[in-house]
């Protein structure tokens, strides 16, 4: 099958790739670009482990065709640190013990980032809704919500 050419920006860097028309963005990130921080938990758009930010919105990369990314800006968990400095959401997750096994963590952090980028002062309810597409089996979300709340409050 003919490959499709995509020009996109991943974590701020331009990337040109030839991908199969049916290739999932998830596989292209993990396998072609080696960005394995984005995880696969269900493959059907339910768990959110594969969440990245595309042009400011979260997407489930297991349901997204890489070929549709032409011209788009993609941020993955690997793109969050700036000059070796943790993003405040990452710092808050560490401080609040907002992770256990950590498999859901990159996806949760991306959802939190998309929320706070568009709404720096969300209510607790809005935080919960924003991460409700990210399943976590370990934490019960309590400390995750605490972490995101703290980042929101600090920005006030």
């Amino acid at each position, binding site marked *: 099958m003919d490959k499709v050419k995509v020009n996109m920006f991943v974590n701020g860097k331009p990337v040109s790739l030839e991908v199969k028309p049916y290739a999932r963005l998830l596989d292209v990130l*993990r396998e072609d670009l080696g*960005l*394995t*921080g*984005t*995880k*696969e*938990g*269900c*493959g*059907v758009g*339910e*768990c959110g*482990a594969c969440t990245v930010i595309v042009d400011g919105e979260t997407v489930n990369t297991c349901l997204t065709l890489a070929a549709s990314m032409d011209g788009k800006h993609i941020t*993955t*968990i*690997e793109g*969050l*640190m700036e000059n070796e400095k*943790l993003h405040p959401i*990452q710092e808050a*997750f*560490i*401080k*609040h*013990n907002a*992770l*256990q*096994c*950590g*498999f*859901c*963590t*990159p996806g949760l*952090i991306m959802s939190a980032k998309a929320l706070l980028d568009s709404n720096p002062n969300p209510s607790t309810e809005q*935080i*919960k*809704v924003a*991460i*409700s*597409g*990210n*399943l*976590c*089996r*370990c*934490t*019960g*979300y*309590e*400390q*995750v*919500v605490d972490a995101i709340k703290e980042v929101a409050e600090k920005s006030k």
Partner: protein
Amino acid sequence: MPLMGQKNFRVLNKPVTRVDALDKVTGRAQYAADLNFPNMLYGGCLRSGLSHANIVKIDTSKAKAIPGVKAVLTAADVPKPKSWADYYYLADKIRYIGDVVAIVAAESKEALSDALKAIEVEYEELPGVYTIDEALEPNAVQVREKGVGLVDGIPTPGTKGNAFLESYFPIRKGNVEEAFKKCDVIIEREYRTQFIEHSYIEPEACVAVSNPVDGTMTVYSSSQNPHFSRRYIADALQIPMNKARLVQQTLGGSFGGKEELVGLTVGRAALLAKATGQPVKMVLNREESFLESSKRHPFRIRYKVGATKDGKILAFEGQLVDNAGAYNNQTQFMNCRASIHSAGVYNIPNVKTDTFGVFTNNIHGGAMRGYSSPQIIFAQESLMEELAEALNMDPIELRRKNLLKQGDLTITSQKLVQPTIISEMLDHVLEKTDFVAKREAYNKQTGSKQKGIGLVTCYRGAGLGAETVDASGAFITALEDGSVLINSGTAENGQGLKTAYSQIVAETLGVKVEDIHHIGVDTHAIPDSGMTVASRGTVMGAQSMKKAAEKLKILILETAKEMLNASPLDEVIIEDSVCFLKSEPSRSVSLGEVCNNRLWAGKQLAVYEWFEPKPLNPDHHTGQGDVFPTYAYACVVAEVEVDLETGYVDVLKVTAAHDCGTVINPATAKGQIYGGIAMGMGFACTEEVEVNKGKLRTKNFDSYIFPTAVDVPEMDAILFECDDTEGTFGAKSLGEPATEAVGAAIANAVNSVLVRTKGERLRRLPFDLERVVLGKSLRAGGNA
């Protein structure tokens, strides 16, 4: 000293940052599926889609001819198709839906998927038995040769049937027949529970890499129990254990589940790596994981309980039967625990219970967080409510009258010599939740949405106890810069073991937590310490770590004293990686300088220590004797709102008090409790792997529903401590206690509404929309 905070520690009791947090928030932690090797192939499995069938013919020729396909293996091609743990790497007959018929390795995922489709198999479907009731019918199809029949309700050798003899555990205490005669009130009830999926977010994964030079097969995997996975490599390939190496990768959740299926996957990947001479990566998709992974065992529990009219329970009888599925390597251990806890946290003089599993052609039960306790506590604590009702007594009073106290005998006649703080915890929680006032207010509600409040008291034997040996080993090396490497045979599974062990070493040795690095399990580098299960990691597993740190401390102090010119009367202290004289703290030397001195003096800097627990030898015919080193107590209250029209249960608040003995780290302890509450809520309200004649209706998270951030209730985690001398620094189990009582508390809260409004009570989990509205499920349940 009931609430945490009255013990005197430097590092324990503190919310120390998880040592693996940085790797996990940056996405750089390496899980098994993240690994890649040159020339790596993709491995995959073919399953039949059937739950009981003969394999008449397999033709793999078309699959082998596909370009890029490197190996296609069936049972006929491998040295030992059946694993050491009952299950098959490659099945010669289909005994349940998860059985694998063929495995393939190919250069691309496309070639792999084409090859799996091109394998032609002819099956002959067979009738099967699927539920506990079917399995126990007199002329049921016999699922396994080793199944036995029942005589007087008891699995009996020499008869034919589906009972799993090795999983039979009786409890015989006192004389129930006589005691029932003295009871004023006797009730008999039956409760049932469902199949539950662990739902770790990371599906099973591994990469097998063979070393052509020395013949070692190394598998990097998502194993909960790395040394047990190693056994599958050696077994599948029939090679010596010292040529089988397993390296545990960061694990994306397990909860008891990443044992059998991960082991089989490791074995299959190793077989393909051997056949092709290339690395093979096997990553299961979620559907495959649902089909073949173990589940929480469904139970059918029948109880008969008798009490005097003032509420003293005199006699307790029970039959607890669990659905073991087609294969099983857990029921025979789990039912030991199930039997010991079969009558709850109460002082009952006369007990007779029989616990056993049955084989079916269904999906199989395995270890899942609680290891029988969520099911039994649900039944047990529902029974307490029903007994109180029959006695016309407040269920709180009934519990108070019967709760175990220090010095009492459990149902195995073990004398509780350690602090037994459950009554104190009950009082605290009742007050904190305003339980009695709320219950009264709720009784006056009208309308279609009504609130309810429910209570549970329970306990849990800490660690493995009489299930199997609770020994462990640990290793510490101090380096010349004062940093310390530690390792243990027990594994980090996401629960925070590396952090807890680092704190325990820091507390014991006086080294800073930041200066400690826990390596993680490579089976070529650290000896087997048994499984990381049974919430034993801290309470028992860390005993060897503490011992090793104590030994190393003696060595370091010896040199520090010399370097500080201390007199024999001077005491040297190590704190924050500095050694100093107690009487003159300014005279000090850094830990690094001491270690450097020892290194160049040729003195020992590494310690490996082993911990052997005290023996526990209950009588297998009566279950009587000491069965656990100590017990962890819990009291949980749930508040719910039930929509009587839709059946929706809104869990509003859960208050969970846990007797931690000693809290190693309050942040991670609370993390366990919060996660346990969410998991217990799913168990109570929404979760069920629905099976119909062994076939799954729920195969992914679109149909298998567990709580999201918007679903979880308000949570209050209360940490109790006490002076218990058994566990490491007095710590007790918490990982499983965190979830085991939650489902039962929610069930009691929901039933308080249903009894009040409809005069009915549910006795079968989960309390989903259909059951709450109709009292039954319209869909088939695995244990219906």
